[in-house]
C-alpha cells in the first residue's frame, strides 16, 4: 500500500467532520493509510508529484461515518422479536458469519467505524479479531462483548448478568480480560426486553460508580443505556462517558427533567439520538412518512440540544426493520426532525463521535495525519438531503473498500 503513489481526491464539496460548514474546491491527498494533505484548490494549485488525481465531479466528500451504537450479531428475522429469538438460538459460527455480513452492510452504508454495544457471548470479540487478521473487509470495530445487566435486566439474553456490587466489579474486569474495547452497562430496562422496565433504574449509583471506576482504571470508556430520568440521574452521578438513547423516541412515555439536562451539559457527557427505523420511517418521502410525528418524537432531544448537551447520532441497528446499510438516513432524521444544520448532523456521526469514542486521533475528520477513512456521496446533500443515502465509494485506511455498493475485496493479505 505504501508503495502506491498518493491518491488525490479533488472535490467540489467537503464536509471535514469538525462541525464546520462545507468547504469548496478542495484536494485531499491520501498517502498509504493516512491523509497527507487537505488543501484549497486555488488557481495555482498543482497536484503533488507522481500523485494520481481523481476529480470527484459533483460528488461530496465526507469523513467515514461513525455509528456509535449497533448490534451486529442480531438480524435475520422479520421483526425485532424474531431477531432476539434468533440471537439466542444460533451457534457461535453462525453468529460470527451474521456479524460479518452486517458489518459489511454497515460499511456499504458509509460507516467506517462502528461501536457494537452488545452481542451474544463474546462473538463480537471474535469478529473484531477476525477483522484484525484481515479475514474480512469491514469497518473499524469497537466492541463491548456483552452488556453488563442484572438478572432479568435489559438484554440479559445476551449472556451476562451481574447483580451484586462484587459481581459487577468482577464482570467489568472479566470483560476487559476478554479484550473488549469498552464497557456497556444497562442503567435502565429496555424496550427489547419485555418486563425489564425502562422507566426505572436497574443499578444504583454505587454500582455504576464501580463500573465506571473499574473501566476507567483499565482504560475503557463506559456507554450507558438510559431511557428515563431515574437512570439518567444515576449515570450522571456515576460519571459514565456516553449516554445511549437518553430518552425513548418510540412514542412511549418521556419523563424529561430539565435539571438533569443542564447537569448533563455541565458535566460534558455525550448524549445520543437513536435514529432507528421508528424515526427513519417517518421521513417525509417514506411510505409511512409523517414529518410532524417525527418532530414530535424528537421533542425531548431538541430540548437536550438546546440545553447544550452534545448529541451523537447512532442507528441502534439490529437488522430490518432497522437495516444495517442505511445509516445516512439518520442524518436526514436529525436535519428534518430537529432542525440541526447539515454540517452539525454530520459532526454528530464523525468528529464528535470520534471524540466520544476516544478515536479522534485516528478518524472522524478530514485532516492531515488522520486515517484516510472517507465517503463519497453521489450528489450534493446541501441541495438534496437524500444524497445521504447514496454512498458511492468508501475508503478505509486509504483502501477503496466499497464502490457502487459492491465490496472491493483485498486478496492475499494474509
Amino acid at each position, binding site marked *: 500500500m505504501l508503495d502506491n503513489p498518493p491518491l488525490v481526491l479533488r472535490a467540489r464539496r467537503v464536509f471535514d467532520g469538525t462541525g464546520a460548514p462545507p468547504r469548496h474546491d478542495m484536494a485531499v491527498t491520501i498517502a498509504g493509510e493516512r491523509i497527507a494533505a487537505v488543501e484549497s484548490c486555488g488557481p495555482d494549485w498543482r497536484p503533488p508529484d507522481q500523485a494520481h488525481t481523481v476529480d470527484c465531479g459533483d460528488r461530496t466528500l465526507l469523513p467515514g461515518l461513525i455509528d456509535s451504537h449497533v448490534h451486529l450479531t442480531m438480524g*435475520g428475522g422479520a421483526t425485532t422479536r424474531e431477531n432476539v429469538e434468533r440471537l439466542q438460538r444460533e*451457534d*457461535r*459460527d*453462525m453468529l*460470527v*458469519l*451474521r456479524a*460479518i*455480513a452486517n458489518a*459489511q*452492510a454497515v460499511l*456499504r452504508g458509509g460507516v467506517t467505524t462502528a461501536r457494537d454495544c452488545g452481542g451474544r457471548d*463474546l*462473538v463480537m*470479540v*471474535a*469478529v473484531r*479479531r*477476525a477483522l484484525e*487478521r484481515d*479475514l*474480512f473487509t469491514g469497518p473499524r470495530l469497537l466492541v463491548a462483548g456483552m452488556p453488563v445487566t442484572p438478572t432479568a435486566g435489559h438484554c440479559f439474553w445476551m449472556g451476562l448478568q451481574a447483580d451484586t456490587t462484587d459481581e459487577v466489579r468482577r464482570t467489568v474486569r472479566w470483560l476487559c480480560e476478554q479484550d473488549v474495547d469498552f464497557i456497556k452497562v444497562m442503567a435502565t430496562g429496555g424496550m427489547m426486553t419485555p418486563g425489564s422496565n425502562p422507566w426505572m433504574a436497574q443499578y444504583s449509583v454505587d454500582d455504576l460508580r464501580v463500573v465506571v471506576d473499574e473501566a476507567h482504571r483499565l482504560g475503557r470508556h463506559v456507554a450507558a443505556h438510559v431511557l428515563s430520568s431515574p437512570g439518567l440521574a444515576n449515570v450522571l452521578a456515576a460519571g459514565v462517558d456516553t449516554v445511549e438513547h437518553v430518552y425513548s423516541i418510540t412514542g412511549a412515555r418521556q419523563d424529561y427533567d430539565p435539571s438533569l439536562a443542564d447537569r448533563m451539559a455541565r458535566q460534558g457527557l455525550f448524549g445520543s439520538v437513536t435514529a432507528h427505523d421508528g424515526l427513519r420511517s417517518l421521513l417525509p418521502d417514506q411510505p409511512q412518512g409523517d414529518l410532524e410525528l417525527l418532530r414530535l418524537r424528537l421533542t425531548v432531544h431538541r430540548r437536550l440540544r438546546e440545553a447544550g448537551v452534545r448529541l451523537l447520532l447512532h442507528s441502534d441497528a439490529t437488522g430490518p426493520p432497522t437495516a444495517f446499510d442505511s445509516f445516512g438516513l439518520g442524518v436526514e432524521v436529525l436535519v428534518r426532525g430537529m432542525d440541526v444544520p447539515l454540517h452539525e448532523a454530520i459532526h454528530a456521526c464523525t468528529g464528535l463521535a470520534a471524540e466520544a469514542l476516544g478515536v479522534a486521533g485516528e478518524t472522524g475528520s478530514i485532516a492531515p495525519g488522520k486515517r484516510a477513512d472517507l465517503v463519497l456521496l453521489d450528489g450534493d446533500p446541501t441541495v438534496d438531503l437524500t444524497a445521504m443515502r447514496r454512498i458511492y465509494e468508501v475508503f478505509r485506511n486509504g483502501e477503496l473498500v466499497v*464502490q457502487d*455498493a*459492491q*465490496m*472491493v*475485496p483485498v*486478496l*492475499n493479505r*494474509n
Partner: protein
Amino acid sequence: MRTLLRARLLIVGTGVPPIEDAAMLIGADGRIEWVGTSAAAPRPEAARVVELGPATLLPGLIDSHVHLSFDAGPDHAAVRAVLDYEEQHGLLAARALSNAQMALLSGVTTVRDCGAKGLVALRVRDAIADGLATGPRVVACGMPITTTGGHLHYCGLRADSESDVRRSVRWLAQAGADAIKIVSSGGNMTAGSNPLLPQYPAGVLAAAAEEAHRLGRRIVAHALNARSIRDCFEAGIDTIDHATWSLADGSVGFDAALGARLARSDTTLGLTGSGIMRQLLTDTAGVQELRERLRPHRELLALGARVVVHSDAGVRFTPFDQFILSLHVMEVGLEAARMQVLQSATAHAAVALGLADEVGTLEVGKRADVVCVESNPLEDLNNLRQVRRVWRDGRVVVEDGRLAAPAVDDAR
C-alpha cells in the same frame, strides 16, 4: 428477468468442441434456457443482452476437495496450530468464508469441503445459501470420520469400531452434512498416522458407505496406498481422493486390473494438485517426478476413468485462489488435453459431487454457474486467470475482481 449472454467462444464442459460466436440464455430462475450460436439464438422480449466480445464463457469451476477451515500455512504443523488457535478464538467461520470467497473470485463456483474442524463449513454453506454472504456453492462434509489418532483426528470426529463409524455417519447426516468423508488411510499432514497402511478394514468402509447411501449422501474417501484404494473400491465408496497408490516401500505402484475395473465403474478418482505438486511444475526434473507420481492417474485417464482434479486447498501452501495451478498439474503431469482438464474440473467434478443434473456444464436446464474469461483457455490454461465476471445461479457474483454485495438485485 432473462439474460442473453453473447461471447466469442463457449466451452460446454462435456468435452464437445467449443461453440464459436456463442450465445446463452439464462432464465429468470437462474437456469440455462438455451445454448448455441449467436446467429441461431432466440430473441425473447424483455431479455437483457450482455455483449462479452472476444471473451470465453465456460462452466464455473468445481473444486471437489478443499478444507475451508485450514489456512494454507507454510507447513503441516503450522496449519494445525493455526486451526487450533482459530477454533479456540472463534475465528474459523471468518477464515472459512474468506477462503470460500477467494475461490469464487478465481472462478470456482462450487467447492466441496472434505473435512473441517467442527461444523463450521456447514455454517458457511448456510450463510451463503441464505444470501447472508456472497460465495461459491458449498458441499460440506462436516468433520471427516477418522480413527483415534488417525489422519485429521484434530477435526474432532473419531470413530474406531464399525458401530462407531455407522453412528458417526448418522450423526453427520443429522447435523446437516451434504456428503460423508472417511479417512481410509493415514495422511502426511497428521504425524503418526501411517499413510502407507489402511486405517479401517474394508468391512468398516462398506458399513460407512451403506449408511451414507441409505441416508442419501455420497461418500468420499481419503486413500493414499494401494490397499486402501482397493478396499474403498470394494466397499462402494463413490469418490477415492488422492489415490496416490503408494506402496509399502514408498514407491508408486499401480494395479492395472483394478484400474480397469475402476474405469468401468461409476467411481470417480481424485487427482490432488496441491502446493507440493505445483512446486514440481517449475523445472524439468520436477516435471519428471510429477509424471512418475501421477502415473496411476495417467493410466486411469487412458482407461477412461473419471479423474477429477482438485486442489486440496487449505493444506500447506495451497491457497484458495490457485485452482488454476492444479489444472496445470493435471495438464503437465498427465499430458492431458486442455479440454480434458476443463472437463475434469467441471462436468466430472459435478458427477463426483452428485450434482451432475445441476452444475458442471453449460447445458439447458443446468444452473447458470458461468465464468467469463478474457481469452480462450483452450489455448493456454493461464487464460483462466483473467476472470472478468462470474455468475452463480444466473446472478453476477464477481465482476472485475469485486465481490457483489449479497442480496443486491444485479442479475445481468
